């Protein structure tokens, strides 16, 4: 009996082992051209106009393209801001008054379902966003992209391959917004008519280098090479995005070869991954983890208190010791990787002695007690609780006792921009590749101005920057706006994420640009055996 049992177990193990090396109908060469990426959470909808969050942008932009795009082919170190470059528009003209944009469209381009891309398709896409009388107008997309399209007054089809936009007022960030985070990507009018605004995300069809094949929610999103792509053919045959929300699971999946690369490896795992031969690539994307002092809180109304806080936090120490150099200390509210960012700008250097002195001058020689609200997790939030504890310890050294109030991400987002007056400050992580980002976090009437900062001089210079018709003038205005934020210590930047990716050494050609997303057309797999 025992012998039979042992034989059965051995046979079972051999059978399982045999099965593991089979590929169930998928050819080996195909697998070698497949890149599996472990992503940090489930993706949102595969409708670029509706989607929110960086995780989803990274997938959507492989399927869909906009009129122009960012050049993401260069590594972070070689260029600080990804330059704009043509995509579905080969060129564009902007009138001197900044009110007319004429786009010259690429010819002979087809959507992945064969629908021709032309001026009518562009008009169809924009009417979905701005024309409430249009049959396919989508309220959700319109709201999501309002910061990009709300200044468009009308469109005029010049010919099949030329379209002109007329703006209500000049909008200096328009081109960057078309290419960047709120990418107004072109989707196939045929697919949208067929599946409707709600059904499109299950059947996305764009003009991009990869086309949608399959989505098993919670398990994977599979894209395959678009054989009719107008641009350079991607080297990969397939890309599979696998949501792995637990960071230890992501690391284990990479180490055991189930995925080829992972986003957001935990700081503690980086050293050991490197030692095991995995490559770690860093960028300097537009990301700032910052504190928003609450201007409705009696202590925080005092400028010297805000300045004392900024000078008491050892941002460099936090970046090095707590976050193991996966971030850089941040000294500017403006996010890196945009034209108005000055890497040498320092709002307040680390100086706890001076901080204590400022606090005494403010009338609090023995400090005070206040509350700091933060989430416990969330996209781009890094490790918010240990970071908050670091800040708590630093502020204790100058006499400010901080009570931490933590929330899970959903609750936190719901109340983030609505601090009660008893709360001293809260925290957020954000950033954009356009300086327009400052409008979001600090303009007096912006819904995302969590601290309720209000400075007419700041609002004035932001208004000037937004309507400037000259890029240089706009950039200078944004720099002035940033200086005003620093002077008022209205935002206290802490660190900027270096967005590390960990990958097997056979993954070649992957570049981390200074953006929150990447280009996969140059990536390939090269195994030595």
């Amino acid at each position: 009996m025992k012998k039979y049992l042992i034989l059965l177990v051995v046979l079972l193990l051999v059978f399982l082992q045999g099965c593991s090396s089979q590929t169930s109908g998928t050819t080996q060469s195909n697998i070698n051209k497949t890149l599996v990426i472990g992503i940090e959470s489930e993706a949102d909808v595969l409708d670029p106009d509706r989607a929110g969050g960086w995780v989803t942008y990274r997938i959507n932009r492989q399927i869909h393209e906009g009129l122009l795009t960012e050049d993401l082919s260069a590594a972070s170190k070689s260029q600080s801001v990804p330059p704009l470059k043509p995509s579905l528009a080969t060129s564009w003209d902007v009138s001197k008054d900044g009110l007319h944009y004429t786009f010259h469209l690429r010819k002979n381009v087809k959507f992945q379902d064969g629908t021709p891309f032309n001026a009518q398709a562009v008009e169809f896409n924009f009417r979905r966003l701005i024309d409430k009388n249009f049959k396919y107008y989508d309220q959700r997309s319109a709201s999501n992209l309002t910061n990009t399209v709300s200044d468009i007054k009308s469109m005029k089809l010049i010919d099949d391959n030329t379209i002109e936009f007329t703006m209500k007022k000049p909008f200096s960030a328009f081109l960057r917004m078309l290419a960047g985070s709120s990418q107004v990507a072109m989707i196939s009018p045929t697919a949208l008519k067929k599946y409707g605004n709600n059904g499109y995300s299950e059947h996305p069809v764009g003009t991009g280098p990869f086309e949608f094949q399959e989505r098993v929610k919670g398990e994977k999103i599979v894209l395959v090479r678009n054989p009719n792509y107008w641009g350079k053919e991607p080297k990969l045959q397939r890309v599979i995005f696998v949501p792995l929300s637990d960071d230890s699971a992501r690391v284990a999946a990479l180490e055991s070869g189930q995925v080829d690369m992972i986003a957001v490896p935990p700081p503690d795992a980086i050293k050991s991954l490197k030692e095991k031969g995995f490559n770690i690539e860093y960028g300097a994307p537009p990301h700032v983890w910052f504190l928003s002092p609450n201007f409705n809180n009696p202590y925080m109304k005092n400028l010297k208190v805000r300045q004392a806080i900024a000078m008491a936090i050892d941002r460099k120490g936090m970046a090095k010791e707590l976050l193991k150099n996966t971030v850089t200390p941040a000294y500017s509210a403006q996010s890196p990787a945009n034209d108005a960012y000055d890497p040498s700008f320092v709002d307040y250097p680390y100086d706890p002695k001076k901080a204590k002195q400022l606090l005494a001058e403010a009338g609090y020689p023995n400090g005070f007690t206040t509350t700091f609200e933060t989430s416990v997790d969330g996209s781009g939030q890094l490790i918010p609780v240990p970071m908050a504890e670091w800040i708590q310890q630093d502020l204790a050294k100058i006499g400010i006792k901080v009570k931490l109030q933590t929330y899970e991400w959903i609750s936190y987002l719901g109340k983030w921009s609505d601090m009660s007056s008893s709360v001293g400050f809260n925290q957020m992580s954000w950033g954009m590749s356009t300086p327009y980002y400052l409008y979001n976090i600090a303009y007096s009437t912006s819904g995302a101005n969590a601290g309720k900062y209000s400075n007419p001089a700041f609002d004035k210079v932001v208004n000037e920057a937004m309507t400037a018709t000259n890029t240089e003038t706009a950039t200078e205005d944004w720099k002035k706006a940033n200086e005003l934020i620093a002077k008022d210590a209205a935002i206290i930047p802490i660190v900027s994420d270096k967005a590390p990716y960990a990958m097997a050494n056979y993954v070649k050609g992957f570049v981390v640009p200074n953006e929150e997303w990447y280009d996969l057309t140059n990536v390939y797999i090269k195994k030595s055996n």
Partner: protein
Amino acid sequence: MGAYLAKRLLYMIPILFGVSFLVFSMMHLMPGDPARMMLGQQAAPAAIEALRTKLGLNQPFLVQYIHWLSNILRGDLGTSITMQIPVSAYLFPKLINTLILAAGGLIVCVVIGIGMGLISALRKYTWIDRVLMFLAQFGANTPGFWLAITLMWLFATKLGWLPSTGMYDVRTGPSFIGLIKHLIMPAFATATVSLAVIARLTRSSLIDVMNAEFIKTFRANGISESKIIWKHAFRNILAPLLNMIGLQIGYLLGGALFVEVVFNWPGIGSQIYASITSEDMPMVQAGVLFIAACFVLINLINDIIIAFLNPRLKS
């Protein structure tokens, strides 16, 4: 028995109502505005207000609850905010995946738990008994997620024997063998506490029975030891064992929810987790309700089994 069943079924109605009310209240009390979530942070206030009116979010709490409940009773669990598809069509397959994992855990805890208990009882006070009971004690006090990560580190990362994530191999697609290989570690991580409970119960019950007078009589009459163990002693402990196994199913389901996130098992637990982080309230509400309903149902089945095994309750 019929009256007992009817009474038990009737009890379920207020419990399910209570659960639904709690789930709805919980979501309602949470900060955040579903209309803003649907339209994004940049949406104009007028658009948000219009959507709030359309969704009935301006109505009083009780009106909203009754509306939500009547939809649920008609099988409409709402539409996912992030995916824009009916929640019921999406969550049902996830529930099946969770049940597969819980069933895997059940098989592990029944087979190994009873096996360990039997060996321990038959080799009582030997080193085998001590080792097995130490393992059971250790298992009973081990958090599921910790065990999950440890198993993953050992069997996926170090030894490379088993896959660490998902239900199938993403490169090659679904297969039954693939499913079994993917199931082993999550099933163990889910089952550990229940396994320990069953092992200890089996051991103590069997030792008690083996010391009973009737067993001594069998021995005195020369009946073989194996016949005594399997035909008489084991049968005697079956009723309390079944009772305990029934009780453990609820724990297995609860444990599966945590383990799913670690192993990326595409079940209700990882879906609730993903929905919380993506602010998809209808999905969270329905997911929690599904799980609560499963618990109530499992408790009912368990009570019925106990009633069958306990003649006093039958009457």
